[in-house]
């Protein structure tokens, strides 16, 4: 261990059980419990499965993190990047002690403050003042410490006029400002920040980023920072960790990690590829071409899907269709093409097709494809592939009053409001 290490992570892994946990399987739970009591390994964990959600695992256990090792030096600001589901949040949760690792250990020096969310534990009925104390205490501050910093916090949030008003009367902006102000004034040697800055207005975001920079550069604190915003990572951190499918892919200086991440992601995102089948038609490659450089798709831009289909022999009357589904497995978009309308797949070997969804306005979420390959006359289905080419849709970086809330819809449409 080097002299100045602030955090040392050794062989860290985390397994999650998918699906319904526990229900109807009391016997299995007992079996597992019995195995654990004897100090044996969980009989239902299978080692070696990686956390690749685009491929359905054989068991219902997924390794969200697998054998992570790294060491962070005191005073370093380290970014953690990776696609959704790469294990970033899990890593932060384990470091924040919100959940325990399945194997491995982490050791560290100094007090940890983690900010997975701003305003945790805020009570709408309580005043700003009362919430500052409550929230500060939840984050691990002593009452005296909060008292000492109270004026500074109120000043940073810029809400001194409303300090004795219940926070339920605050605007969302004020609420977030107050919440962040408390967190920003935590005294700790290590600060862990999840992507919490996505809320609040642009002005305040800048202020927060500034405050965080101050924290890491000025006061010699160790900072761990998760973000999808590569600019923020680049400005705030000197080193970065690149997580991929639950494994540590690269840990180096931020510049090269971001470069690697963008490069790798270009080739990785939303691709399905498979060896052609010998006797029947099959998909050999399906790729979703999203609009953004980091592999996500911006609501409102063209979404392009490229397909390659292998035909061992020419069959007339082929049809091709795609469904785009959300994580709740609800199909949102259906797109298709029939040979009867447009002759297609009329050559042996690889046939290339492209489907363009112009101005695709899927709402922010993760989506995946279901691809169907069939012959309509004889009604034979050659292939139906589920859960492939997962991609993420992001919303334009436009500030709206409430921020983009989750699950308010699945699709947006152009609209116009007017006074009558």
């Amino acid at each position, binding site marked *: 261990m080097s002299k100045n290490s602030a955090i040392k992570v050794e062989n860290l892994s985390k397994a999650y059980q998918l699906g319904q946990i526990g229900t109807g399987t009391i016997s299995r739970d007992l079996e597992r419990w019995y195995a654990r009591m004897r100090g044996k390994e969980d009989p239902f964990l299978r080692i070696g499965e990686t956390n690749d959600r685009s491929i359905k695992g054989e068991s219902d256990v997924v390794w969200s993190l697998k054998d992570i090792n790294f060491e962070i030096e005191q005073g370093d600001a380290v970014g953690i990047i990776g696609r959704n589901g790469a294990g970033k949040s899990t890593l932060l949760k384990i470091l924040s002690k919100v*959940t*325990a690792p399945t194997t491995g*250990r982490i050791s560290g020096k100094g007090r940890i403050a983690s900010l997975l969310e701003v305003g945790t534990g805020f009570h709408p009925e309580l005043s700003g003042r009362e919430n500052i104390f409550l929230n500060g205490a939840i984050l691990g501050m002593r009452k005296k410490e909060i008292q000492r910093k109270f004026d500074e916090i109120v000043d940073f949030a810029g809400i001194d006029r409303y300090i004795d008003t219940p926070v339920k009367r605050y605007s969302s902006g004020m609420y977030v400002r107050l919440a962040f102000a408390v967190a920003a004034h935590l005294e700790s040697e290590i600060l862990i920040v999840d992507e919490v800055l996505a809320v609040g207005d642009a002005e305040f975001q800048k202020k927060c980023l500034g405050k965080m920079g101050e924290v890491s550069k000025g006061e010699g604190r160790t900072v761990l920072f998760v973000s999808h915003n590569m600019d923020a990572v680049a400005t705030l951190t000197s080193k970065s960790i690149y997580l991929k499918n639950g494994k540590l892919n690269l840990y180096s200086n931020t510049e090269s990690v971001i470069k690697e991440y963008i490069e790798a992601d270009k080739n990785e995102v939303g691709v399905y590829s498979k060896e052609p089948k010998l006797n029947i038609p099959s998909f050999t490659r399906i790729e979703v071409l999203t609009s953004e450089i980091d592999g996500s798709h911006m609501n409102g831009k063209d979404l392009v899907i490229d397909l390659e289909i292998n035909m061992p022999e020419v069959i007339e009357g082929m049809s091709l269709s795609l469904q785009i589904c959300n994580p709740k497995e609800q199909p949102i978009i259906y797109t298709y093409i029939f040979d009867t309308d447009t002759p297609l797949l009329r050559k042996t070997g690889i046939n290339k097709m492209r489907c363009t969804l112009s101005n695709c306005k899927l709402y922010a979420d993760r989506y995946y494809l279901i691809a169907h390959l069939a012959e309509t006359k004889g009604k034979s289905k050659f292939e139906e592939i589920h859960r492939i080419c997962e991609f993420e849709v992001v919303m334009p970086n436009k500030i709206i009053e409430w921020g983009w809330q989750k699950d308010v819809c699945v699709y947006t449409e152009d609209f116009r409001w007017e006074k009558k």
Partner: protein
Amino acid sequence: MHNDEHTWTIEAKASLFDLKLNEIWAYRDLLWLLVRRDFVSFYKQTILGPLWFFIQPLFTTIIFTFIFGNLAGISTDGLPKPLFYMAGITAWNYFADCLTKTSTVFKDNANIFGKVYFPRLIMPLSIVVSNLVRFGVQMILFLLMMAYYHFVVGASFNITWAITLFPVIVVLMALLGLGAGMIISAMTTKYRDLAFLVTFGVQLLMYATTVIYPLSTAIEKYPKYAWIVKYNPMTPIIETFRYGFLGEGSFSWGSLGYATGVTVALLIFGIVIFNKVERNFVDTV
């Protein structure tokens, strides 16, 4: 800091009996702030505010007096009926509140637990302390009623030396509710249906405790089944409570010792299972 020693570690496995008491001590301010939050938010959201603390035991007492005392004619060991019932209700309510609130602690705080770490035991502890405030208010009501019956009605009852056991009884009730509640809370994270059982179960349990009848009557009328009541750890607690304040009830050191034993056992088991579940429970909600 110039030492190379790491000051903390996060391990995959933790000792079952590592109660992290020093950590809980470090977070004691949070405990008080949570209690304050419970009280203030309750106070602010209601019109009658703390009056609710009185209304519930008062009406329950009136109803019990009519139904069990007058209609059914169950003995109250010669004590004025309202006093007898209120003693039982006041004590029982505290235990029942601790139990039911603690049993949903994971569900109620899933959001906070999923985002911030603090010693989880703080939450159930804050529940027990919050309820103590409520219990205190109801005790005042009970004492007022005692004074009324003594000075105005002139009913005969006498305070005995056992009243000095009052602090012990309160601690026992709190810890018993806490222990049982934590066991249930840990189990409900996996088996949700248990949560429905709690409210119902607590209600049933009340009838197996000497809230509406004295232990002596139970033994006399149902000698075969009285053991259910007798071995219920809440029975000695309530009996001692009545004996201390009203001078009637079956008090014995043996049964109180038994209740203490059960409480300690449940509490230890509760804390162990709670600590175990707490480490991974956010993965399952």
